[in-house]
């Protein structure tokens, strides 16, 4: 990977795309990276396309991942993955297949995003304690333990 890591999260409203990107952005920030995350609000709750561009490294300029510049594509919807696959770098990772594994593993729909963040964590050089801090920041105490468990299930699956 180049010195700046670019990830494109995509899906449709209500799938937790923005939450997944927020957790990842915070984890990267806690790990000491400069982070930029860009997204468009407004349509998220109404079933429209949702994408979040996340980039981190020593110093990030563009908040948008350029076409053909994503190291990782993290889709929550196969149609959206297809629409945005041109963003993936040659040799980049498309994590769509892991979505199928979340289904197979019987992960509840509401935890898919945390599972996929776990998968993503397996592909990134961010220490575990930064992920924990980010999860604690983003989830209420009541739901935290379950999210941490699902995160580790994803991490186990995505671990390289």
């Amino acid at each position, binding site marked *: 990977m180049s010195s700046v890591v670019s990830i494109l999260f995509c899906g*449709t*409203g209500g799938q937790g795309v923005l939450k997944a990107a*927020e957790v990842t*952005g*915070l984890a990267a*920030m*806690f790990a000491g990276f*400069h*982070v*930029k*995350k*860009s*997204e*468009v*609000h*407004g*349509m998220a*709750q*109404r*079933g*429209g*396309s949702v994408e979040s561009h996340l980039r981190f490294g020593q110093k*990030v*300029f*563009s*908040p*948008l991942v*350029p*076409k*053909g*510049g994503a190291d990782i594509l993290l889709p929550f919807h196969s*149609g*959206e993955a297809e*629409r945005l696959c041109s963003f993936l770098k040659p040799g980049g990772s498309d994590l769509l297949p892991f979505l199928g594994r979340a289904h197979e593993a019987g992960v509840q*729909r509401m935890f898919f995003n945390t599972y996929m963040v776990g998968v993503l964590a397996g592909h990134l050089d961010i220490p575990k304690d930064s992920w924990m801090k980010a999860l604690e*920041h983003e989830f209420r105490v009541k739901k935290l333990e379950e999210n941490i468990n699902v995160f580790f299930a994803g991490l186990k699956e995505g671990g390289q």
Partner: protein
Amino acid sequence: MPEALEQTAFLSGDEALARGAYESGVAFAASYPGTPATEILESLAQYPEINAQWSVNEKVAYEVAFGAAIAGVRSIFSSKHVGLNVAMDPLMTSAYVGVSAGFVIVTADEPGLHSSQNEQDNRLIARFAKMPLLEPADPCEAKRMMPYAFELSERHDIPVIVRLTTRVAHTKENVPLGLRVEMAPKGFTPDPAKYVMVPRNAYFRHIDLEKRLLALKAEAESSPLNIIEINDPALGIITSGVAYLYAKEVFPNASFLKLGFSYPFPEKLIRAFAAKVKEVVVIEELEPFLEEELQRLGIKHRARHPSWRVGELRPEDIRAVVDGSARVDIEPAASRKPVMCPGCPHRGVYSVLKKLKLTVTGDIGCYTLGALAPLSAMQTCLCMGAGVTMFEGFRKVLGKNVVGVIGDGTFMHSGIAGLVNAAYNATRGVLVILDNATTAMTGTQPHPATGTTAKGVPTKALVIEDICKACGADHVDIVSAYDAAAIEKVLRKRLDEDALSVIIARTPCKLIHRAKSLPVEFNAAKCVKCYMCLNIGCPALSRGQDGLIKVDQDICVGCYVCVSSCKFDALKKGGEVPA
């Protein structure tokens, strides 16, 4: 208030700008919700030191906040780009008046119109209104520019425009936090020659404004917000805002003049930069704002193709802009369109309007989605309030089969004046207010009929039906937005009368009232596969592979609007014994 994370927080441009305003000692803030500016006021409202409000519309917000600045405390007005149009009347003359304590205007523009009706470039308003313009490129800079903006405003006795775009407003990054500087209120000293804009006074204030602009221009020449980076002199890029970051990403070794204080235009600085590089290229989104200044100064540069005046700039576009070639993908990417939520109260009303084949003048809000297939039940959408006023024009030209539609928040914003006008000018016909008890599209902000302020404090809840009666409506009916039969009955009755009627379809938005009833039940034996139920555009209903209707039990909230769309009783309320 975003929680401080060891003195650094992960903030959006909106939140960072609000933080910068807070640290600058801002005491007063007013706004009206609009993407991508909404979170500015939402953030400001969380600081106890700031008196922050959702105003009834942008003109009102501007005047209230400007009043607070003249009364002696630092104040801020924010809105989306088109919101500034609503505030143009006070804005134009406020440049003449100037300020007492600092006054900052934030405009959040939307290149690419992700959630807007146009993509106007509000940098042109700075030139038109003769006000200084600051353009941050990212959240850190948005925060850093705020103390400068307030000082500039006070030093030069003028409101200052800070312009964000979607990719600044809705980008998050690590932002270092600082402490608030408290500013002592200045109080008000009467000065009619400055504060009373009658012709003679205004004439002299105009002369003064021209002098202030010259002083601002001199300051822009040496402002720390305008930065020259000399690297490879072969290519010199003049740019501002987020376009700088895209250009820097693609041409890291080029030389740059990054304009953070871009109006009045720093002429000498530009000439000095142009002299140091072989070729000058301007990279900007939307209008040729900087480019025209270069043309005016006679500075040689490679021209941008006019096709780039349309749409949002992206990093992968930069090379084509520099080459002088045209934009290729002029059509926006085919993304999934948003739909009304399951249980959305607007669906029932639109299904009736469609059934009665009425011509519908619409307005701005979630209910604008009623214009999309399969409902396709709304024929116009122009600006806030036009659902009422264009209705009047339509009704007087086309006759009876016309209905105006407006939401509760939009009615408060600018529908009331239209209704008064309709009554005064003897308009007949029916206006429907889709009252879902919130400003839904921008994220369920309160408004004057909800009983809560931006600070979350209980307040007077204005009564929409009383307002309608006071505005001259002959009849005001209130119906449940889920009761399609009742809506149809009252609509037919009122359409036939020689009167001005308002029908309020009142059911709260599902984003605030999350209570669910049992999911609708489908009886396959009765389904004749006419698919009329799919015409209401509910995401919980779809056509299965077997051709039968599939109900998504997880997302159906039991509004049962689909039940009345089925003539064959194939859809039943959940828990009801089948007939």
